[in-house]
């Protein structure tokens, strides 16, 4: 709605302590005006606290919050041009839908709210429910009321705290598209907190992955997925296979790694660990980048591809693809997703196979970190 460029949300060195517990470590973050920004992380990672500090519901222990040029760090929530869609919505149970949506306008002394509220009810397709009480609506409808109640105030930033968490899967997918549509339509900056990586990736332009009170990595969904810089990000967003390897040599733009008996190549640009000879590196590759060839046909694999041999330990057919778990000497549970285009009937558990992939799809991470970071959290969510 507004076109001035000074509408960025800037957090500088913002932090939050509860007694001796640090919920958010000093954090610098800029959310560009008009973007759909997601804070992604497991529960307790500090993402909601960060959001609440932007809303003014939580006072930061240190640092500042700027909205454009305005320092809002000490402003109470009712003076900030920011609105929140709360987890489980927090609709006013004693007011009907119309009054819920009109609440913010009335508090700012706007008398003729009818037209604006009706427009907003149309935007969220709830026109015929205006005089119902919140408890008479379904979860999805309540969620839309919560969005409408916040959006009607034309906030500089709309904060969404796990807004889809209480909905079932199908409705959640539907609401993701709906929210994305609304955001494109109104052009307001959205900051969305979620623990659902798929949700963050489908909706957001920029995702900040948070872990233990810190931003682990920030980037576009595809950038985070293709170039994770930590094992946490690699595991939290999708699935990754890791091979513990050692740097053998560096040649031009490539790093050659030694793993088990074989060699793997990796573009130096995609290696976030120091590539000194003898240094330990975790070589990662996503399951869908890997091709699976029966050991008998291994000769037909083009040269120059990274290859690893192993034996299929398990497979599950899920329609569009088949997911294999391959037991290999360098990695005990190598996951491979194969599109079901031309299925090779010999690829059954027990079969000896060769895994191979384009070296460009390999990424290298510092071996000093926990290989399984981020796995547990995602399973729990």
């Amino acid at each position, binding site marked *: 709605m507004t076109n001035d460029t000074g509408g960025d949300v800037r957090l500088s060195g913002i932090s939050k302590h509860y007694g001796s517990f640090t919920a958010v470590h000093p954090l610098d973050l800029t959310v560009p005006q008009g973007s759909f920004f997601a804070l992604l992380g497991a529960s307790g990672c500090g993402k909601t606290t960060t959001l609440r500090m932007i809303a003014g519901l939580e006072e930061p222990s240190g640092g500042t919050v700027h909205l454009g040029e305005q320092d809002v760090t000490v402003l*109470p*929530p*009712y003076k900030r041009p920011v*609105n929140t869609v*709360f987890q489980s919505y927090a609709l006013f149970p004693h007011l009907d839908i119309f009054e819920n949506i009109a609440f913010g306008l009335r*508090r*700012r002394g706007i008398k003729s709210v009818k037209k604006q509220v009706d427009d907003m009810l149309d935007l969220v397709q709830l026109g015929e429910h205006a005089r119902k009480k919140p408890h008479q609506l379904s979860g999805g409808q309540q969620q839309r009321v919560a969005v409408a109640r916040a959006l009607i*105030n034309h906030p500089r930033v709309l904060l969404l705290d796990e807004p889809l968490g209480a909905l079932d899967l199908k409705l959640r997918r539907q609401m993701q598209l709906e929210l994305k549509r609304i955001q494109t339509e109104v052009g307001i900056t959205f900051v969305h907190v979620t623990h659902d990586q798929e949700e963050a990736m489908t909706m957001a332009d920029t995702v900040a992955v948070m872990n233990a009170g810190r931003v682990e990595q920030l980037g576009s969904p595809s950038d985070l997925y293709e170039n994770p810089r930590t094992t946490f990000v690699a595991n939290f967003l999708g699935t990754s296979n890791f091979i513990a390897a050692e740097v053998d040599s560096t040649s031009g733009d490539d790093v050659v790694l030694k793993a088990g008996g074989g060699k793997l190549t990796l573009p130096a640009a995609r290696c976030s660990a120091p590539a000194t000879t003898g240094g330990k590196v975790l070589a990662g590759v996503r399951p869908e980048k890997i091709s699976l060839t029966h050991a008998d046909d291994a000769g037909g694999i083009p040269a120059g591809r990274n290859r690893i041999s192993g034996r299929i330990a398990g497979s599950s057919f899920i329609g569009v693809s088949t997911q294999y778990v391959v037991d290999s000497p360098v990695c005990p549970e190598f996951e491979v997703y194969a599109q079901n285009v031309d299925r090779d009937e010999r690829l059954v558990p027990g079969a000896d196979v060769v895994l191979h992939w384009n070296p460009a799809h390999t990424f290298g991470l510092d071996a000093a970190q926990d290989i399984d970071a981020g796995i547990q959290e995602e399973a729990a969510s």
Partner: protein
Amino acid sequence: MSTLTEAPPPLAPTEPARKPPRRRGRLVPYWLLLPGILWLIVFFALPMIYQASTSVQTGSLEEGYQVTWRFATYWDALSGYYPQFLRSVLYAGSATILCLVLGYPLAYLIAFRAGRWRNLIMILVIAPFFTSFLIRTLAWKTILADGGPVVGVLNTLHVLDVTSWLGMTQGDRVLATPLAVVTGLTYNFLPFMVLPLYTSLERIDPRLHEAANDLYARPVTTFRKVTFPLSMPGVVSGTLLTFIPAAGDYVNADLLGSTDTRMVGNVIQTQFLRVLDYPTAAALSFILMAAILVMVTLYIRRSGTEDLV
């Protein structure tokens, strides 16, 4: 389809076995209700009928009472004792308002601000119940005694000048004045106000406060537009639990008041136990009951909380 045709056999044997417990289960709630219903019949319905019949009897203690359907007793009772009726409503109403004014902040504090002190404060609210109602009321006699510290302080602050002007006290005395009776009623019924208020405040999701704050409502507006309306069930039940028993109370007026502060409860007590005019006493009881019923109905209608209670 094949799963459907296979399914019935394992279910069939359990079908007849499940029916009898279901039928018994349907009657269980009624059996459980029985003791309560019996209790209500014996201790509520029968005495009511007995009182109703007493109220339309005539006669004397020596000759015995007979049902003569003399409804004039009601008119006589009302015209003879309307000052006491009015006083009951006035005192109970004042005490209810005072209880609300004192109890609301207290309940609010316990519900939202007390943190780990919550249970302790709750115990302190209920603690007076461990002492007898009579003893507690008698204690106020000492507290409000002539020349005592409370009277002294009120005198120094010129509070008594104001209350005298309002007709609630006389001269340097607090005891045996309307103020003493209202104070006693307020004290004795405060927990009945605080507990329902606390219950309804405590049920309010604190995120609603945050949501209101987020939607440009200042703390005072948040209270006016969100907290207070949502606590209305507690306000209504608290005021009813205070007003109804206070209107029928006679102990406070008896111990802390004087002959000028007699409430309808005192009249009923005297008629029943001293004058032994049972028909008048019974008629007074029914008038009081009807009056309270009418007032409560009007009140609930006005506060518009039918769908909140």
